[in-house]
């Protein structure tokens, strides 16, 4: 099996740093895209693909693989970077993000990139898709786990709550929701648009086991994901990962502007320099 696995915490942090560089470069090359929400999810995706998920880049269609659905599809640059680092994609493809004919479409497009579990981009749908996969696993008595990542703004969509009612009722202990709580959406901070709080309580009242973690601390991310995956029970897990939108790039962090704007070449250079300097500290 060629499952990529990074054991050391330091190596995971170095990998996350390199992925941030990839993300900033690829969005810069594309001239459009969503840096803020791509950067906030890096540790979560790194932990999934390099420690927690059961998967094999040599067998992308392995029926027994764990599934990961990026419901917040605009965060796909991070997923594409992870695919390249994990061996699913040739890294040379990363600069083709959003270009005509590229497998790396602006939002995940399974027609163009078959290794994606689902096409996404219209918010609120991925949790339901994940439910369908989790149900199929139960019907087939298969033991793969399904992870779905949404944004926090995304949980304003009603369909998320349809799905949130459904999963515990149908005892989908093989399903884990990760909410990338970077506290911002497009127009403003989520608190100023439509407050989600108390979010953990909401999920608990719907029947989920809800845990809150620092989404950038591998020492919290790893156990939370591992425990969710190892869930012996019927109750699905909601991991509310507190993150920083634009994490790792000083001028992007917590800056609303960077939801959906690409850095210009000089900004890319500045961001990469910062990230490379940070790497020296690891």
């Amino acid at each position: 099996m060629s499952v990529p696995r990074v054991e050391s915490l330091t190596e995971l942090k170095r990998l996350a740093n390199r992925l941030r560089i990839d993300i900033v470069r690829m969005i810069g090359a594309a001239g459009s895209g969503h840096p803020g929400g791509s950067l906030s999810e890096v540790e979560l995706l790194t932990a999934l693909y390099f420690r927690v998920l059961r998967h094999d880049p040599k067998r992308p269609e392995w029926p027994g693989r764990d599934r990961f659905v990026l419901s917040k599809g605009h965060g796909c640059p991070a997923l594409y970077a992870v695919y390249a680092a994990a061996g699913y994609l040739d890294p040379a493809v990363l600069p083709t993000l959003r270009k005509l004919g590229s497998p790396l479409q602006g939002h995940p497009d399974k027609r163009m990139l078959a290794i994606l579990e689902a096409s996404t981009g219209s918010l609120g749908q991925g949790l339901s898709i994940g439910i369908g996969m989790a149900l199929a696993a139960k019907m087939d008595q298969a033991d793969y786990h399904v992870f779905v990542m949404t944004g926090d703004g995304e949980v304003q969509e009603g369909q998320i709550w349809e799905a949130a009612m459904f999963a515990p009722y149908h005892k989908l202990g093989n399903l884990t929701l990760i909410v990338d709580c970077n506290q911002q959406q497009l127009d403003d901070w989520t608190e100023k648009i439509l407050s989600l709080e108390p979010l953990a309580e909401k999920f608990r009242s719907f029947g989920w086991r809800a845990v809150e973690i620092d989404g950038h601390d591998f020492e919290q991310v790893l156990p939370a994901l591992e425990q969710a995956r190892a869930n012996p029970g019927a109750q699905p897990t909601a991991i509310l990962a507190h993150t920083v939108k634009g994490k790792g790039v000083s001028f992007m962090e917590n800056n609303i502007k960077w939801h959906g704007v690409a850095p210009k070449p000089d900004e890319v250079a500045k961001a990469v320099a910062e990230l490379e300097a940070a790497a020296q500290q690891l």
Partner: protein
Amino acid sequence: MKATTTKFELKMGLATREAYGQALAELGRANPNVVALDADLAKSTYSATFAKDFPERFITCGIAEADMVSIASGLALAGKVPFASSFAVFLCDKAYDQLRMCVAYPGVNAKFCGSHGGISIGEDGPSQQAVEDFALMCSLPGFVVVCPADEHAARALVHRMAEHVGPCYMRTGRPKVPVIYNAEEKFEIGKAKVHGSGRDAAIVACGLEVGYALQAQAQLEEEGIHARVLDMHTLKPLDDAAIAQAARECGALVTAEEHVLDGGLGARVAASAAASHPVPMEFVGLRNTYAESGTPEQLVEKYGLTAPHIAAAVKKVLKRKK
């Protein structure tokens, strides 16, 4: 729904929704990967027929159509062949973005049935009467859209939908309808059924309107007008060749549907004929209006969908024929 004229008698049969349920159960027996979903309308859509035989393969999603459609997508992505149903108006209208993004766009092998199509559902009124579903579903790239006229067409097309790889939508109706075909009749997606070879006009209809079209054909025969009827059970892909042939051989077309004229069967047939062999056309359907509560008979009469309405449309189009 009344089925008889003086000379032309059609026996009443099952509602197409009931035939859907029976066919789904047949599929369930033949293929262990077929699963069914509903949004708390299983008793009305007749997905309950499947649920009774295969409770472990039936998923009720509650009154949550958007969730249901995306769940169907997830099931299909994981190797199942899902058939999800609800009233057409709730399935297609409420879950349209989900049908678009989770099914049509990725081309997922999921099937959908919208029951209670049209105004013939009767007293429940417009909130439950789907009159835009053809337009919505035909607008989705990659979707197959069918509307069977009777129980035999419904059963056959359910099987064709299961064999087809890709997104499919079937509209079924609430009322019992006349039996037009027999159990041995073969149906193919995209191939219209032609009744008669009259050369004065061709009536292109689907669903409930096919029975009325056949009645109109019989009435017109008594008056020396020879019309043929095309059962366009597949709205997408449309049988362009059959439309072109009918246009060439008859020189005039009338369409009839239980749907608004905007974007429905008539609009699609007109586009097809205009591109191949343009001829004068008249359209029977809802003219920019919703219906209301009433008996099915009252509604089809008031909103102009019956055999005499179709016959009148044929006479009208004949005046414009060159």
